[in-house]
């Protein structure tokens, strides 16, 4: 029992006696561990954040009747939406049904798209809207008009619009003018029930567009699940987006991986160097302990324990500092905080202790040295 309590006493003495030097080493360890944990946290979170960013590109999954010919009014039942809602996960950013028809206003034909305008607002957040969005899918008195259509029809936000199809007609107010740069620029967008009434197709829809976040593999998974839940319908990823997304994500992931790895190695080496410098200052202590008869293995264990304790403390403090850093960085880069990952904590502490111990390894070289020489000051 005695040697053991001696061990702890010496260790305590070692840690409290030379506070100045230890604090330099601890500072190095803490900053190294902080950089590591912040970068690791950012790296692990970057992909999910970026895939969410990709969703500003709009719908990436389309549900349509089999071999859907765009011109045929082959309409799926609106009950489809119920089944899609049942399959909804947090990754599904928006799902909007569409029913298209050719309407007519003051003798001019125009494409009318009936949809859920609140979902569209989430799906196509890049649209520039003059005026405002229609806030609810139940709103039956307002519509939105594409930029080109508005120019051709002489409409502005706030103007009234009468739409006819066959012998049915509705009167609406334009809530906003949409600039999307896509086909919506030529259309009148209104809520689904109004379009169904106008087309005399109650409870019917043409296609459903979904915007789903996640990696290409997750998207595929989701598409398969959806296809299983919707027998007889075609669930098709929008190839243009999914392919580009996959390749761009791959590049970014590679870029981050290599740079983060490089910096981790660099930080490790830096901390290693300062730990080694600290260890070499202990040679006098090692010499003394050897001189009064301590076996080399126990002396080494003592100093390893010191380095390990430093590493643990540095890793822990560094992890906490790193959390703050990652949060700040996430705020700067993605505009939202990085979700803390628990796997970063053991990784950071392991790295920190590993580097601290590796820094103490040069002490092993001292086993060849004769105590007398060190004590004489050579």
């Amino acid at each position, binding site marked *: 029992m005695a040697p053991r309590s001696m061990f702890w006493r010496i260790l305590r003495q070692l840690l409290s006696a030379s506070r100045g*030097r230890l604090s330099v080493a601890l500072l*190095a360890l803490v900053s190294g561990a902080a950089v590591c944990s912040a970068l690791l946290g950012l790296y692990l979170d970057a992909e999910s954040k970026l895939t969410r960013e990709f969703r500003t590109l709009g719908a990436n999954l389309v549900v349509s009747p089999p071999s859907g010919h*765009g*011109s045929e009014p082959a309409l799926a039942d609106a009950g489809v939406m119920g089944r899609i809602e049942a399959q909804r996960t947090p990754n599904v950013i928006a799902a909007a049904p569409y029913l298209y028809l050719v309407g007519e206003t003051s003798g001019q034909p125009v494409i009318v798209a009936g949809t859920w305008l609140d979902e569209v607002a989430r799906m196509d957040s890049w649209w520039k809207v003059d005026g405002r969005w229609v806030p609810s899918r139940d709103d039956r008195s307002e519509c939105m008009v594409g930029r080109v259509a508005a120019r051709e029809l002489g409409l502005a936000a706030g103007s009234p619009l009468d739409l006819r199809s066959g012998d049915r007609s509705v009167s609406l107010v334009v809530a906003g003018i949409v600039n999307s740069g896509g086909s919506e*620029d030529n259309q009148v967008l209104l809520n689904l029930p109004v379009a169904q009434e106008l087309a005399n197709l109650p409870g019917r829809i043409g296609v459903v567009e979904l915007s789903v976040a996640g990696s290409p593999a997750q998207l595929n998974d989701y598409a398969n699940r959806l296809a299983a839940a919707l027998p007889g319908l075609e669930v098709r990823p929008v190839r243009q987006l999914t392919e580009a997304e996959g390749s*761009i994500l791959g590049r970014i992931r590679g870029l981050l991986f290599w740079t983060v790895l490089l910096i981790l190695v660099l930080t490790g080496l830096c901390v290693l160097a300062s730990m080694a410098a600290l260890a070499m200052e202990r040679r006098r202590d090692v010499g003394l302990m050897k001189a009064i008869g301590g076996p080399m293995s126990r002396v080494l264990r003592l100093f390893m324990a010191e380095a390990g304790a430093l590493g643990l403390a540095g890793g822990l403090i560094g992890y906490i500092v790193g959390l703050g850093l990652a949060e700040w960085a996430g705020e700067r880069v993605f505009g939202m905080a990085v979700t803390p990952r628990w796997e970063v904590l053991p990784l950071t502490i392991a790295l920190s202790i590993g580097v601290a111990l590796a820094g103490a390894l040069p002490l092993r070289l001292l086993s060849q040295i004769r105590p007398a020489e060190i004590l004489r000051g050579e």
Partner: protein
Amino acid sequence: MFFRIVSDSFGRKPRRKLLTAAALALGIGVTTATLSVALDVGDRLEREFRALGANLLVTPQADTLPLEIGGVDYRPVSEGAYLPAADLGKLRTIFWRNNITGFAPFLDVPVAWSISGRTLPEGLANATLVGTWYRHDVPVSDGTIFTTGVSVTNPWWRVQGRWFADNTPSASNAAAECVVGSSLAQRASVNAGDVLAVKSGDRTQTCTVTGIVSTGSREDDSILAPLEFAGTLAGQPGRYRTMLVSALTKPEDDFSRRDPAKMTPDEYDRWFCTPYISSISQELREILPGTEIHAIRQVAEGEGRLLGRVSALMWLVTFAALLAAGLAVAATSATTVLERRAEIGLMKAIGAGNRMVGALFLTEQLLLAFIGGASGYALGVVLARVLGQQVFGIAPTSRLILFPIVLALAGVVVFLGSFVPLRSVARVEPAATLHGE
């Protein structure tokens, strides 16, 4: 005397100095590498983003309101305006010609069609024939040939078999070729080698199917043929209705969103000389009279946001590299000062002031910064090359401008790193140190 002491110190303990310089070189190397990648990442990813397809859409100005559902235009062929395809070579003569990576004109013709020797199932006899270019040679006025078409603007299109030959001068001859969209081909069981007869109005033409194309969008339900073929069929030879243009652009920022008409001449020049999507469309509008240029905002916006995020991420990583480098230098220089207390004590004892000793150490460290920074730059260029090859398959352009910047950074890092230990020089008591305490 001053320089002799400095050079002496380098000669006496070369290993210790080497260690500091190596740590610095490593740190600066990584910083240089991440910095050059960060500077390049925008351009590289921008090219990657062109896989999303075209970002500009050209339509006739005097057009009637398009009646499109799912990409199929329901207007009769006689209605709407058309644009001449003959002089599109001039797109490659504008100021931003090298940013125009490709363009593809389109002409949709509603047709009645049949496969020779077979009758089609009910409801399939009408389809849309899309005339376009796949890999078309466009003569440019400077004598060169620019090859472009949907192969560039819609790179995700896949074909089974091969694409139609694009450059046959006369489309009306019997050797005309076309490809069929996968969905249509499946329903009508069309195979490569079949001969199709397509009819629009009172004109009928035939073409041989060379492949089945899968696009993931509305073209899967149509027949694709060379633009000339579609033009003759529709009675609008050499014309198109819409055109996709793929251009390398700088992502939108606050400056680009301003109205060019309200800019001062200096600002206008700056705007015009930056490849914003708005300045490129402005030039296209001038060179293609009678057209309207729409930025496909879905692509442009998403791209700008993503590029912003990624480059912010890269700058952050660069900053982390710099921090790590500073850490390395601070640690080594702190130990240097600690180790050389005796020397400092001696200098002070024979009359050197704190300022003198500080200047000596700082000169030493700055010299190290220069050596370490220079070799770090060389190391960084190699690292950036490897990194660029790994990630993008292309090495980033090496920028000489980085060299002075990196050297200055090394100096700053060394200065900051030595600052704290140098202050402890002031506290060294000559008598106590020389005594050996």
